[in-house]
């Protein structure tokens, strides 16, 4: 298993953003759904080693990120796209991705190829020399995705990756997700259930810090038969599970 989480809790004062989550993930694309404030971003940040849990156990790639040495090894093999990724406006796309390749300690000999490949995979190959300040919001999003995948991560954590992408890019991105999921564990936190339906083999629904549903998208859609609100079966399953969890 690439991700093994047991009883993971993260508190901010008296509020438990993540409350006793258990999760075991191997390669594949895993969708993380939930309303605003459900704890998805907190869970992703903990999995990205950007935040320490208050309690519980987390193992990534078979290692404990609580210790510095294993954490460094994990980080070499980790990709993370935050909900609001930052960037240096003066950097070109290629420099931005190279910067992260260097920080992620991609071997020198592979950096040039890795950067070019990552940029091509997000369809920014023709904008490699463009400064980030000149890019549109969607292009910036794609550049940020490129930095997340430049080290060919074995665990890739994406927080709202399709926000700001146009429909064409979103379709292409889903294909990219499926491709990445062949070898890596890809966790996608999103509000867009169509992304989950199209790209994820597994899905979990979070509410108030807890996972209230885990299964396939079809299983989630089935939970909405005859109940729940929404335009698609998955949306109806989503709302039905949430209503049941809150009742």
């Amino acid at each position: 298993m690439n991700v093994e989480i047991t009883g993971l809790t993260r508190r901010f004062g008296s509020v438990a953003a993540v409350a006793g989550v258990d999760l075991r993930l191997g390669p594949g694309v895993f969708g993380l759904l939930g309303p605003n404030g459900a704890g998805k971003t907190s869970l992703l940040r903990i999995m990205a080693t950007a935040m320490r849990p208050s309690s519980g156990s987390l193992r990534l790639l078979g290692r404990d990120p609580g210790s510095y040495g294993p954490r460094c090894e994990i980080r070499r093999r980790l990709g993370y796209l935050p909900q609001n990724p930052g960037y240096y406006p003066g950097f070109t796309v290629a420099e931005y991705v190279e910067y992260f390749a260097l920080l992620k300690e991609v071997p020198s000999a592979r950096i040039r190829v890795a950067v070019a490949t990552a940029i091509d995979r997000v369809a920014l190959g023709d904008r490699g020399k463009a400064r980030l300040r000149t890019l549109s919001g969607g292009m910036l999003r794609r550049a940020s995705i490129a930095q997340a995948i430049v080290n060919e991560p074995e665990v890739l954590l994406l927080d709202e990756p399709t926000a700001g992408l146009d429909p064409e890019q979103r379709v292409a991105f889903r294909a990219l997700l499926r491709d990445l999921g062949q070898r890596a564990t890809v966790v996608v936190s999103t509000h867009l259930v169509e992304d989950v339906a199209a790209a994820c083999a597994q899905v979990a629904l979070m509410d108030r810090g807890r996972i209230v549903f885990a299964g396939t998208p079809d299983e989630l859609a089935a939970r909405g038969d005859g109940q729940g609100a929404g335009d698609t079966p998955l949306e109806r399953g989503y709302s039905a599970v949430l209503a049941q969890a809150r009742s």
Partner: protein
Amino acid sequence: MTAATRAPSAARPRPAARRPGLPTLRLLRLELRHNAMAWLLPVVFALFWLVTYRKTMAMPPLWNVRAASLQTGIVADFAVPVTGAAAWMGSREARRRITDQVMITARSRWERLLVTWAATAIWAMLAYLGCLAAGYGVTAHQASGGGPLWWPAAVAAACVLLFCAVGFVAGAFLPSRFTAPLVAIAAFFVLALSTEPIHGSQSSWQVSPIVTGPWDAGVQAGVATFYPFQPDLSIAQVMFLAGLTVALLGVLALPAGSVGRALRAVAASCTVAGLLAAGTAVGLTGTGSMDAQGMLDIPALHDAAGDRPLAFTPVCGRTAIPVCLNPAYAAYLPATASALAPLLGELAGLPGAPARIVQEPVAYQQATGNSVALQLPRPAVSGPPVLPLVLPDQLGQPAMTAAQQANQVVTTYGPDLVADVIGDGHGASQAQNAVATGLMMAAGLRRLDVYQLPAGHAIPGRQPPTAPGGPDASRSPDVAPGTPAYAAAERFAALPSAVRHAWLGQHLAALRAGQLTLAQLP
């Protein structure tokens, strides 16, 4: 609830080893390309040119003067832009909200920040070296003696690195868009106010990088010209500045998660060692005292070999009595020699006249508080009579042109030279006064405007005969126009030089003994 995906983890080959140096260099290259300091280089160069370069180049082309001025000036010029740029770079990750992305990378925070700091420091140092090269290059072209002083240059370099560290650490720990301007202004004021508490030459505050010697003596042209430059204070300053820099860079690694335990221990050791070095430097500076050569001696750092005067061959003018200057002052020789030449021509060969006039250093002594006493050199008791000469520049007076200096030398030394030969002065006869006045007139020193001094210019212990605006400076108080003595002086001055010289050769002994009357003068 528990969620789990079903597929097993696929093992991937990972690179066996990484070469740490090359990626760091590539990272540095990226940081250099996108560093705020690079954008501020024009500002730095403009500040340097406006504030320091023009002022320094207007100073005498003496290495010690120029080096001291460059050290103080560059430190002040660089304080605001370098500290500000470093703070801007230090706060960059938080300002750009990229912290999460970079934090979860394998490279440690400390390493990442050090590379950014290094890029800032490299740009700042390049700017500094450019300014230093301009200042030292022009000085090398103009100076006639000595060589570049590297310790003041090292102090300024260490200070530039410290500005980088101060700004960067402030930016890293207090990330905000206001950090850069605030810390830059604070750095300037701390620097400017750092000399206020100095009291006497034993003050620890002299460790401030804008101090270039005993604070109360200031930059003296004569210092480090006749004696080697004593780097005691500079060593303490470099130790202080480098110590603080290392301590601050170590602090970057102290927050949790910045580095591994071993590296954090190294960083903590660096911080402690840096603070100890800085503290030691401050303590050492407090043990210093001003020596007779006008430099600060710190006993623990002092090299006694440096107390021996420098050997040099003086440069001498072709006057009847040779005027010899230190080769560093060679530029002043033509003006000084030609100003003294008429008078020296009158006196050459007469009993009591010096065989040579030789430039000598002054001796410094710490007086109470922040005042310094200057002791002028005295003529040698034995050997051929040599008149020791001190140029106004050696006394820390405002910068003057060579012509102004020469006029002041004539004004202050001329009457003494004549008095030494004729015996003029208190109790002198009217004939002595008249001859002395006549000699001064003959040497062209009768008109006040020839040697009128800038306000405040005077060589201590050798006052000009009269203050500017007073009566004719070339005559004794009793030789007033219309008096018989004045008429005799005019008569004497009107004689051909050879006649005057021959008469003096025959009658000087009687004149000095007060045995001649006005009527006996030619």
